[in-house]
């Protein structure tokens, strides 16, 4: 029987951690881009666009992420398109992330005084120009802390991708546990690695929040 030393377990977990990081980064960056587009729709004042984004956000916030992963993994396959676990995880996490980021950012945009919109309107700026030069530069300063804070949720959310067979940190843990029968050791290490990924993020979010409050 194959013997796994502590270091074998740890190094295997760390290799899989790379995929957790890659998946988190892609979900966060793509989710951010989609979220920004949705944000422009959400605060546009154009009723059909606002309705669409509201529905989108309700759906992705109101259903379990795991179910969304299943939908992408099995759902798209129904149309005869082969979906890899990697693809399904990326798509589901991107859309899920975008829904939450849009909602966080909308709150930040809403906190900008109405006078800023009116003054920039009166200066003949278009909606896109108002967002770009007046609203977003102010809203983004408030948005940094909650956005970084939410990235913790994305990292933890990637663990669910293990269930559709994507080999990231959690999946690697499960596989190593099956091979070694040392669940306590394996899952302690898995938890520790997640903690090492997430703690700096939540610490950073708190720090940023504090700094912003002082600045006021």
């Amino acid at each position, binding site marked *: 029987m194959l013997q796994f030393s502590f270091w074998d377990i740890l190094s295997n977990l760390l290799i899989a951690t790379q995929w957790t990081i890659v998946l988190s980064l892609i979900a966060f960056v793509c989710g951010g881009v989609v979220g920004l587009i949705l944000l422009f729709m959400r605060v546009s004042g154009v009723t059909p666009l606002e309705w669409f984004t509201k529905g989108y956000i309700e759906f992705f916030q109101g259903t379990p992420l795991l179910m969304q992963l299943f939908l992408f993994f099995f759902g798209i396959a129904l149309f005869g398109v082969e979906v890899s676990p990697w693809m399904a995880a990326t798509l589901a996490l991107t859309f899920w992330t975008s829904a939450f980021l849009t909602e966080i950012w909308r709150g930040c945009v809403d906190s900008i*005084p109405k*006078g*800023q919109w*009116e*003054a*920039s*309107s*009166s*200066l*003949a*700026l*278009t909606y896109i*120009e108002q967002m770009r*030069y*007046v609203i977003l*530069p*102010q809203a983004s*300063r408030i948005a940094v802390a909650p956005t970084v804070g939410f990235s913790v949720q994305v990292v933890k959310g990637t663990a669910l991708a293990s269930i559709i067979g994507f080999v990231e940190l959690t999946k690697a843990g499960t596989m190593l546990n099956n091979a070694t029968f040392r669940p306590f050791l394996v899952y302690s290490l898995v938890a520790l690695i997640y903690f090492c990924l997430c703690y700096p993020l939540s610490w950073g979010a708190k720090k940023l929040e504090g700094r912003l409050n002082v600045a006021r």
Partner: protein
Amino acid sequence: MSLVSIRDVRKSFGELEVLKGVSLEVAKGDVVAIIGRSGSGKSTLLRCINGLETYQAGSILADGIEVGGLHANLRELRRHVGMVFQQFNLFPHLTVAENVMLAQTVVNKTPKKEARDTAAEVLAKVGLSEKMDAWPSQLSGGQQQRVAIARSLAMRPKVLLCDEITSALDPELVNEVLRVVEQLAKEGMTLILVTHEMRFARDVGTNLVFMHHGKVHETGAPKEVFAAPKTPELQQFVAGTGH
């Protein structure tokens, strides 16, 4: 020909009819002072002129551009109709110069250098040359409001709308702003101002408009109207303001 022509404009917020058929002609160089009780529809009327509010009936033409309707060319309109607000509404993330340059560079596509020259010129006009690179938060209310005026002037508007632009200021800062407006009036700028400064309305205004319950209740030359208000409502209003 009128620069701003308002014909029988009606505006409701839901059930509440705020403008009940307002008509007003403003010629080039006029200084129109709009007075009236709180809630009489002064701000709403002003905001209709540059399309910040929509209205349900009647028509507004500003510099020949139709304000209402689905296809109103609001961008073109607002390039010629400036507005200054009670709360200044400066952009806090931009310096004074950048506040004044923004619309020039973004809307008119004026090169930065030229926009900065214009900013320097209009800031000099409001007496704030040395504050070009200050942040709005470093300025007093009176200075902020003068920057807001400069920001509008930089677009070379044909009409400037002012909605109670001294009401948010400490009393000792009111005059520095009024002096700037008076200077603009002297230079021939067309102004439509909602104001509670009765003396200013009388001395600087060329037309006085008394709004009451969503209508132009009485209008005329300020000195005459103040000296002998015809309607009991205006008599009461003037008595109430202590003039």
